[in-house]
């Protein structure tokens, strides 16, 4: 077997749907019937999962450390809010895509700033862009509603058929479907040759460019795609909660997002989804213990995760499921340990 066909067969094998993945999505859908009274928090988890998926695309796959990913979330949220508020696009699905595209344009424009320089410059530039947008939002408070946020957003029924109800049932299914579709797309992207080249860039940009990967163009492309995802997540936020405030740009939001991704594990798509579930549950627990000071516990979790080592933690977390699979199926574990971040 030649090296080329070896690589492609390996890649195809990786891209195949596994039983565990199908089980995951069935479980996600059945949550609607298992916890019928908790639609709001579940919708919250789905939005966060989508947002984290977006960060995973650039951080986990392409290795771009961003401290200002909330910028795109915020742009998506405000676009969706303004479109609905002024009745420009009343239909939520079209508005969702439109908001995502607006974030995409911003992502494309700012990607040129981000690909320049080393990690530190990237951190500063991404952080700076988010802060810049927050400052702009405050400056043009006649449009954005300032610190009060956009008020009086009324959402029309989805596709003219399904109205948003007060229990959040419609919102939940709407978000879940959007997440699933975008997840399929992301899955396709990361398993494509394009996705493989991103990993090559992450592992060693110099070597990647030496074998003919156009590094900068690939980074611009994935950054733009990630901006689209984040914009959609933001638009979902506005559409399901009917509000948008300047908090969406806050630094804490980007930092929380990193924590979510790190809890779940970087460099594999389910990391973001699992991280979102765990993070929201942690948040619930901490907020019931010490409502005011849960920031402390979030910080402690971050410190402990880093000190223990992210890879090691995931190996521990996956130890039991892998053991069960090995015992039951009598074969190699299918739940993979996410790839490490070390260069």
């Amino acid at each position, binding site marked *: 077997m030649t090296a080329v066909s070896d690589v492609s067969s390996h890649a195809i094998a990786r891209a195949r749907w596994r039983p565990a993945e199908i089980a995951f999505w069935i479980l996600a859908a059945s949550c609607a019937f298992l916890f019928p009274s908790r639609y709001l928090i579940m919708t919250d988890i789905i939005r966060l999962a989508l947002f984290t998926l977006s960060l995973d695309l650039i*951080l986990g796959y392409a290795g771009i*450390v961003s*401290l200002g990913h909330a910028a795109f979330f915020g742009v998506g949220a405000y676009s969706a809010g303004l479109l609905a508020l002024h009745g420009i696009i009343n239909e939520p699905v079209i508005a969702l895509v439109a908001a995502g595209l607006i974030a995409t344009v911003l992502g494309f424009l700012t990607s040129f*700033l981000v690909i*320049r*320089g*080393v*990690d*530190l*410059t990237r*951190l*500063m*530039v991404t*952080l*700076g*862009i988010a*802060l*810049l947008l927050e*400052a*702009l939002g*405050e*400056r043009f408070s006649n449009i954005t509603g300032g610190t009060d946020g956009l008020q009086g957003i009324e959402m029309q029924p989805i596709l003219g058929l399904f109205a948003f109800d007060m229990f959040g049932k419609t919102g939940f299914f709407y978000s879940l479907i959007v997440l699933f579709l975008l997840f399929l797309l992301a899955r396709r992207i990361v398993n494509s040759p394009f996705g493989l080249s991103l990993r090559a860039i992450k592992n060693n940009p110099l070597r990647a460019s030496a074998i003919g990967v156009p590094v900068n163009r690939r980074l611009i492309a994935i950054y733009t795609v990630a901006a689209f995802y984040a914009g959609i997540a933001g638009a979902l936020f506005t559409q399901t909660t009917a509000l948008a405030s300047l908090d969406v740009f806050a*630094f*804490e939001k980007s*930092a929380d997002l*990193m*924590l979510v991704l*790190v809890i779940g594990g970087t460099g594999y798509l389910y990391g973001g989804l699992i991280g979102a579930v765990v993070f929201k549950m942690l948040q619930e627990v901490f907020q019931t213990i010490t409502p*005011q*000071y*849960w*920031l*402390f*516990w*979030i*910080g*402690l*979790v*971050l*410190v402990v*995760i*880093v*000190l223990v080592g*992210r890879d090691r933690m995931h190996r521990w977390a996956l130890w039991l499921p892998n053991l069960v699979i090995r015992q039951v199926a009598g074969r190699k574990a299918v739940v993979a340990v996410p790839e490490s*971040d*070390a*260069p």
Partner: protein
Amino acid sequence: MTTLFTILFDGVAYGMLLFVLACGLAVTLGLMNFVNLAHGAFAMTGGYICAVLVNNSGWPFFAALPLAFVSAAAIGVALERTLYRHLYTRSHLDQVLFTIGLTFMSVAAVDYIMGSSRIFIKLPAALEGQFDFFGVGIGRYRLMIIVICGLLTVALQLILAKTRFGSRLRAAVDDPRAASGLGINVPQVFAFTFAFGCGLAGLGGALSAEILGLDPYFPLKFMIYFLIVVTVGGSSSITGPFLASLLLGIGDVAGKYYVPKMGPFVIYTIMIVILIWRPNGLFGRAATR
């Protein structure tokens, strides 16, 4: 014309203060290549210790300042020896996550102990008010800041350039392996430098309570300012961050005075433009890592 001088004066005071706050970060981030987003937490610690000593225990302000320095440095060295040390070789992502975690913890802890409202330090009467100098209003407190920070800057420059420790530090930064081969205890040099930087941040925090405002969210609010000083200033010398903080201070004060509605917009735009133009900082080395 006099307003212009007042703005210039206030801007210089503000910039000097930023320099003292951030120059510790210039060493950890610029020289040791460690992304320490928790630097503001040390500044806050110093500020709060000074506030407690002056307001509650009745210490004189000038006696509390050195203690703010010493306690922040002690906390810094304790953390460096126990936690930070393990992260020098880790990826930037790990460092960012770790220091954000520390910052969050410090914010919540200070909020828990001291309450969430802004805190003021009682100043001695000699430092209050302002006097006229050829028609330009000079705040006494700001004048004191300029004097203290100016002396500190000169002292730092002399330590780095003239003393044995300074040359050891420069050697350790330029090439840690060769330096340790020459018998320099590199970890010790780094630990000492880290502690000194934290102490300076603590001192800066104590001085800044009057001007920047001290509340539990201080580390998050001013994180970006410290980072700007270091990234824009570059890391090859102490002059770069110094000029960058003066620029930032004057720019911020002037921006707030002339275009108050644009808020921090001007600063962020300038920062992004500079970083695009010179990714290694205005006065940085051209070499990449």
